[in-house]
């Protein structure tokens, strides 16, 4: 077999590794916002797992991730929210939102046995998810934008306490 045939086979093999649905899902998220570098504060409200999942392209992989807001309109992120999860084996994990309202958990920190239950707490205020999360680790995959027939709306905690901005401006 000549080198051209090997090249064709190699290209075909690589092309077969691509998942166009996943690629489109990643592309649909659009570019980074000007002035925000990729990192813990970027892309609030987007489904983190689209990129930080098993199929990449981002690193690290997240087992749980999302954004919590001060109100349902998503205008103001809520810093310092405790996000608690308990899985079907009873294992629990808690983390805290950063100043973009983002939180993320890596598999080495917590790999849940699905389904899981979630709650958010800020000071004396808390809210618990009414249903289970069965397999989706990205909040925004289901809590996408405004409430609709196929979205539960943004994750928010209606607190009267004045939220700290946590260093973000």
């Amino acid at each position, binding site marked *: 077999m000549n080198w051209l045939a090997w090249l064709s086979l190699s290209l075909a093999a690589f092309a077969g590794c691509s998942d166009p649905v996943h690629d489109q899902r990643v592309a649909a998220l659009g570019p980074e916002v000007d002035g925000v570098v990729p990192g813990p504060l970027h892309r609030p409200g987007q489904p983190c797992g689209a990129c930080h999942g098993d199929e990449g392209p981002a690193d690290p992989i997240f087992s749980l991730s999302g954004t919590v807001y001060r109100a349902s309109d998503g205008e103001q992120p809520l810093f310092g929210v405790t996000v608690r999860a308990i899985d079907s084996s009873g294992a629990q994990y808690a983390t805290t939102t950063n100043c973009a309202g983002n939180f993320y958990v890596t598999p080495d920190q917590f790999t849940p046995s*699905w389904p899981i239950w979630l709650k958010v707490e800020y000071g004396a205020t808390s809210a618990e998810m009414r*249903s289970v999360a069965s397999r989706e680790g990205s909040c925004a*995959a*289901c809590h996408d934008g405004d409430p609709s027939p196929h979205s*539960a709306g943004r994750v928010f905690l209606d607190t009267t306490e004045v939220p700290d901005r946590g260093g973000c401006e």
Partner: protein
Amino acid sequence: MMACLQRSAAAWVVAVALCGCARQNSDSELLAPSAKDFAAVSSVLERRCGGLDCHGSPARNLRIYGIYGLRLDGRDVTGGADTTDAEVTATYVSVLSVDPETLSRVTANQGAGEERWLVLSKGRNREAHVGGARLSVGTPGDDCLISWLAGKVDVSACADDTLSPVPREGEVW
């Protein structure tokens, strides 16, 4: 969109009901469990299978409509108003569309052989299921579905089905 879905659902239910009155084993006639008391069965499916990340999604062949997932009426939102009668009907129609030949045989046999019906074999994770086991034999939720297949919904079993976190000993949630 909603009106169209409701019309389709109604047409399907009528067709299934008519099939239910007819002889089985013809090429085009299938039996199906009754829509009576399906609301109780639907409540189990909604709770265990009907989240937005599973069968409460328009991307699934088996669609479960209701408060925890996909809404039938474009004015309703996930997590908002309770599941409506129209949504229960739409879920009923969707459930009947899964592996209908096996469902017909199970119905004809008053529920016997239920483990072969795809909804239960996947729900119990006896067959490959991305969501894993969502029903276990001997639990109220499973009993609820079996009773529906057998022709008389065990409403109390359906009502007894719960899905809540169980913290480990010495821990609280």
